[in-house]
């Protein structure tokens, strides 16, 4: 039977995380379909049709899917249940919100955050903030899976999947969308950026993040942060990298004024090259950094900006 991937999108475009989830789905079964549930989501659906390896794109275009509320999307997934042996979503905040709801209604144990597919029923996933990797085999007839995007290469483009409309399903009316405050940025998204510059508590203030942004812009990089920097109100919550924030694995990760707590490392230690800039030579971040610079960030960042 086939695998259904729940697309992550904003109606106008497909989010990159969907591409990693498709790669994981293809490792489970060769027949992969993508579900685009949205409102006025034709462009997102067209983008999904072009993803390599996808044979069918199911579209459900209805007002109740304008925002991906779990209470609305779960009945739609359930209505398609008979045709699929596995349901896959990227481990984004949407995927994490929706998929366990589906799993419970199918009475299956979800496998969260997989980083590899060993066989159609066996997966690897990090536990304990990535300090251990567990291999688990699922005995459930249907699998419900979320995918850690850094574990899988993005699927390419050049596909031409068939487009099929599916009926919207009535959801419960006990939850509704009120408002959203989305950060607007022209910088690359953290989860797909090739280079990330992150700041920690050492930045001292939100204003000082301008130093990071200047360097990031020269590098075409995304900007991230530690939890301490987010808690202190320097930057919005969606900048947070770590066990409970975003998981990233860019080619280059530059940690500035970040000590290197286990929970922060959990979100970035699979980056290809890690650079640490910290004035404390004993900071734990240096134990995993490929290149360490023991110096004051207020000297280093302006210098970097000038040199680039």
């Amino acid at each position, binding site marked *: 039977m086939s695998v259904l991937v729940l697309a992550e999108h904003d109606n106008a475009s497909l989010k990159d995380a969907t591409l990693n989830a498709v790669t994981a789905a293809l490792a489970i079964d060769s027949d992969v379909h993508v579900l685009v549930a949205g409102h006025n989501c034709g462009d997102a659906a067209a983008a999904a049709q072009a993803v390599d390896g996808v044979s069918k794109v199911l579209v459900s275009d209805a007002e109740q899917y304008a925002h991906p509320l779990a209470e609305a999307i779960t009945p739609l997934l359930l209505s398609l249940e008979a045709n699929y042996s596995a349901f896959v979503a990227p481990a984004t905040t949407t995927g994490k919100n929706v998929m*366990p709801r589906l799993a419970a209604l199918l009475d299956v144990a979800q496998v*969260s955050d997989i980083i590899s597919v060993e066989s159609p029923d066996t997966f690897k996933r990090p536990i304990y903030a990535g300090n251990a990797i567990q291999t688990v085999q699922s005995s459930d007839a249907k699998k419900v899976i979320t995918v850690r995007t850094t574990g899988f290469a993005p699927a390419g483009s050049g596909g031409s999947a068939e487009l099929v409309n599916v009926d919207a399903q009535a959801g419960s009316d006990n939850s509704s*969308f009120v408002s*959203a405050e989305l950060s607007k940025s022209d910088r690359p998204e953290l989860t797909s950026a090739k280079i990330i510059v992150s700041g920690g508590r050492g930045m001292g203030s939100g204003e000082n993040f301008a130093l990071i942004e200047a360097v990031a812009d020269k590098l075409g990089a995304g900007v991230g942060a530690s939890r301490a920097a987010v808690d202190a109100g320097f930057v919005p919550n969606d900048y947070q990298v770590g066990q409970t924030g975003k998981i990233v694995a860019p080619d280059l990760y530059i940690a500035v004024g970040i000590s290197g707590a286990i929970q922060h490392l959990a979100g970035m230690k699979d980056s290809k090259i*890690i650079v640490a800039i910290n004035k404390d030579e004993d900071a734990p971040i240096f134990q995993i950094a490929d290149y360490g610079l023991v110096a004051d960030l207020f000297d280093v960042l302006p210098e970097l900006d000038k040199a680039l």
Partner: protein
Amino acid sequence: MKIIVPVKRVIDFNVKARVKADGSGVELQNVKMSMNPFDEIAVEEAIRLKEAGGVDEIIIVSIGPNQAQETIRTALAMGGDRGILVETGETVEPISVAKIIKAIVEEEKPELVILGKQAIDDDCNQTGQMLAALLNWPQGTFASEVKVADGSVNVTREIDGGLETVKLTLPAVVTTDLRLNEPRYASLPNIMKAKRKEIITKSTDDYGVDITPRLTQLKVEEPAKRTAGVKVENVAELLEKLKGEGVLS
């Protein structure tokens, strides 16, 4: 109204988990155990709602070994009113935890269940959503603000792109994110008082829930190790190295 807060006993967040040499799991002998940090936040939120008025009772629930009593006791010392321990030996998967909590919800009839968004041992991030599904209740996950009004609750959620607010009709499930609040420390008098608060012990059979795991753990291994690289003297040397690596042009 009543609030139920499920709390899990996990390895302390400051301890770096070590994989057992035989690959059978993570070393938990002689390791400091604590309440899951997100659950402390859940307990704190329930107490704040009670302090604001309108909440009669906070029931703390834990599913786990006998020592999970201590975890419940900690939550009672913070301000919970009474506890239920569902004693189990083996690991209980989120789907089974959700079924047990559902059975307790049906007995106790709370209007709000506040859970952590994720247990920091299994990192599953499932139980709250599963519970909401089984009860057919709405869910406000990854909450950074919870505002209860007449018959409903507005939950501001931390999502990948920023923040989102949803309105849920009560009864509802909420799961906590880190910035919802800063949990209090229990005062000595409250720790003493908590010793007299009731904790009842139950078994999974009492709730008729089959907790046989669906996932078989085949092995647990250490992640690929990263080793410390080199220290560079200055920005010029750093840039030269990065160009050498091909990550900067």
